[in-house]
């Protein structure tokens, strides 16, 4: 069940929020936990074993953390058990299919091909579980004693399947004491509807152009169309994920939780380093806190820093998916970040124009590596982006780009606009006026209309 579905908006939300607000406060945790489990069950209805795995991981986390706290002399062992459990589940579900597929290509006689369906949200709840166990191990938080509270924390439906990656520390206070106010509820609805609009009215249409170009085949597109397509994907992935995160934050607010911000105008960055501080902020923080710093961060000299960055970006790459392109993508980001850290970062920071031009060029290119999972196809796509390497500038269909530009120009303009800070500043100015409600109502109606027409599609980040 996705947030941008009629099923979620017209059935799940009224039922859950109805029970959550109308029943006495003491039942709120139970309502939220049960509702979130229902939400997850609907998503895993064809693979109920995923649901069982999820429940097991919740119970295991709770008692592992309790054991870490109780048996201080053996806490390392319990930490290892907890982390290994999560990593093994993640690796088995996410990477074994790819790995066996590759072995099968080399030795088909072994017949190792496996078709493993990735459990929804496993990349996210695994990271939350690890962060919780690690924090208890480090003593930065006390182990949660209530299974219900911990269950609510991990399973909260609004962040369960595509983040933001919330740490226990961030929501502990609200797990025990959260205030529901009409102001929060209204604000939450506003944020939710705005996120829904970004997803349904902007990301989906732009994503269609990217799909269309895939259906044409990269070898048959002109260079301008290749650029249009990758820019469309650049906007799609942003508004898709940003929209989703906003919906999650809005729902969190409606439930009385303050979820962390996941995006901070990443496309206005001057360097890739800055970009990754502004893009999927909760994932970046997780890797910094639970991988980069434990490895030594930048405290042990240049060589060790480069090694640590390499590890973090390789892991970031493969966290996003099982495929050679994700490894390559992580490696490319690592190279760019090292280059910026030691050579050009300061220059780009001090010269905003140069920084923006550099990023306008670099962002779509790195997304191309991310988006195209077949390395051969990726090569063809790059030969279209840069015709100097390939078969020329145009395609058999001479003005292909004009056809698509005509259809998609309004979406590109709105996408560009909403990538800057300007519209958000304007919205801030009118946030308490009635006009904002008129606008959001229009967005809601338009979004529901598109959903009814079947123009919604799953979130990109659900496959991670």
């Amino acid at each position, binding site marked *: 069940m996705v947030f941008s579905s009629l099923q979620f908006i017209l059935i799940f939300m009224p039922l859950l929020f109805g029970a959550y607000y109308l029943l006495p406060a003491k039942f709120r945790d139970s309502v939220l936990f049960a509702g979130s489990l229902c939400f997850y069950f609907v998503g895993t209805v064809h693979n*109920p*074993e995923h649901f*069982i795995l999820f*429940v097991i991981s919740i119970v295991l986390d709770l008692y592992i953390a309790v054991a870490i706290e109780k048996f201080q002399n053996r806490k390392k062992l319990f930490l290892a058990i907890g982390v290994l459990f999560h990593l093994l589940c993640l690796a088995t579900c996410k990477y074994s299919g790819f790995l066996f597929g590759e072995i099968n290509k080399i030795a088909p006689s072994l017949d190792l091909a496996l078709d493993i369906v990735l459990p929804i949200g496993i990349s996210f709840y695994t990271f939350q579980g690890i962060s919780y166990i690690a924090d208890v191990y480090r003593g930065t938080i006390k182990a949660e004693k*209530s*299974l219900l509270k911990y269950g609510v924390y991990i399973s909260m439906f609004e962040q369960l399947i595509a983040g933001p990656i919330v740490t226990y520390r961030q929501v502990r206070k609200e797990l025990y004491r959260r205030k529901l106010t009409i102001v929060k509820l209204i604000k939450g609805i506003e944020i939710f509807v705005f996120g829904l609009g970004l997803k349904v009215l902007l990301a989906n249409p732009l994503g269609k152009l990217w799909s269309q170009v*895939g*259906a044409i085949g990269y070898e*048959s597109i002109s260079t301008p169309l290749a650029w249009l397509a990758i820019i469309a994907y650049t906007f799609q992935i942003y508004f898709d994920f940003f929209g989703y995160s906003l919906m999650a934050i809005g729902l969190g607010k409606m439930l009385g939780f303050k979820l962390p911000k996941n995006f901070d105008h990443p496309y206005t960055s001057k360097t890739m380093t800055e970009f990754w501080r502004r893009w999927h902020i909760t994932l970046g923080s997780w890797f910094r806190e639970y991988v980069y710093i434990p490895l030594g961060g930048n405290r042990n000299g240049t060589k060790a820093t480069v090694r640590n960055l390499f590890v973090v970006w390789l892991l970031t790459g493969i966290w996003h998916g099982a495929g050679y392109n994700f490894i390559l993508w992580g490696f490319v980001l690592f190279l760019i970040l090292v280059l910026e850290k030691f050579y050009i970062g300061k220059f780009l920071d001090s010269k905003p124009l140069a920084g923006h031009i550099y990023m306008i060029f670099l962002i779509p290119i790195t997304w191309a590596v991310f988006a195209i999972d077949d390395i051969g196809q990726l090569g063809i796509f790059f030969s279209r982006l840069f015709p100097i390497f390939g078969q020329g500038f145009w395609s058999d*269909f001479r003005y292909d780009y004009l056809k698509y530009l005509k259809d998609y120009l309004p979406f590109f303009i709105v996408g560009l606009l909403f990538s800057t800070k300007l519209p958000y500043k304007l919205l801030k100015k009118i946030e308490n006026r009635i006009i904002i409600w008129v606008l959001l109502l229009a967005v809601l109606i338009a979004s529901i209309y598109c959903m009814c027409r079947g123009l919604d599609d799953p979130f990109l980040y659900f496959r991670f």
Partner: protein
Amino acid sequence: MNRSNLRTLLSLFIVVGIVAIYAVLIDKPEEKPDTDNEPLTQLSEITALNTTPSTTTTTATTIPAKPVNISMDDALFIGDSRTVGIKEYAGINDADFFCTVGLSIYNIHKNPVDVSGVGKVSFTQLISNKKYGKIYITLGINDLGYDTEKTMTKYREFIDLIKNNQPNAYIFIQSNLHVTQKRSDSDEVVNNAAINRFNAALSEFADGKTIFYFDSTGLYDDANGNLSTDKTGDDAHLYAKYYSEWGHWMITQTALLLNK
């Protein structure tokens, strides 16, 4: 263990138990034997028909190495997104194309279409104002959801309309290409069994004199009779690079038929 945790744990245990029973009971979507894809009697007849040289039907076998030289300046292509692909990528620049994405026998008279060199016209306007020698129709994939009998009546009316306005034109009814197995298995409407049935019905219009049936259904199929996955990016449409081949195949078949 405190009482509250015991209660939660017990509830979870019951939930997991129910889900586990459900897991055992549910029918996992399996690879079911594709009985739907069994050739219909009607289709078998056509296949049989095609084993001997036919004057009504031409069947896809191989793709011509070289295009046959035949004038296409009197040709009109009518069709949906797949014909749009022919228009854009096949390089048949002399012909006219009355095609849009989603075009079907039910909506062909609904909206005017921009025909290059002619302007925005309705279908009736186009065929009553310009004379064609060859008319290619590739419609059907968007009509699969409708009642076949009703659709065929509409199709018959459509062909009659063309014949009345273009008495000297040859009409080539093109079969609908298959979709991939993935699409076929997951789509109750657009699947290869339905496409085969539809094509079989289309082939009945051929009279061997002025109306011919081009059976290119299997041209881009895999060994199992589904559109080959390496020839499509969206499970339904050919990659652009194949439209040129397909167009040349049509031209070659036209030349062969007309020479006969």
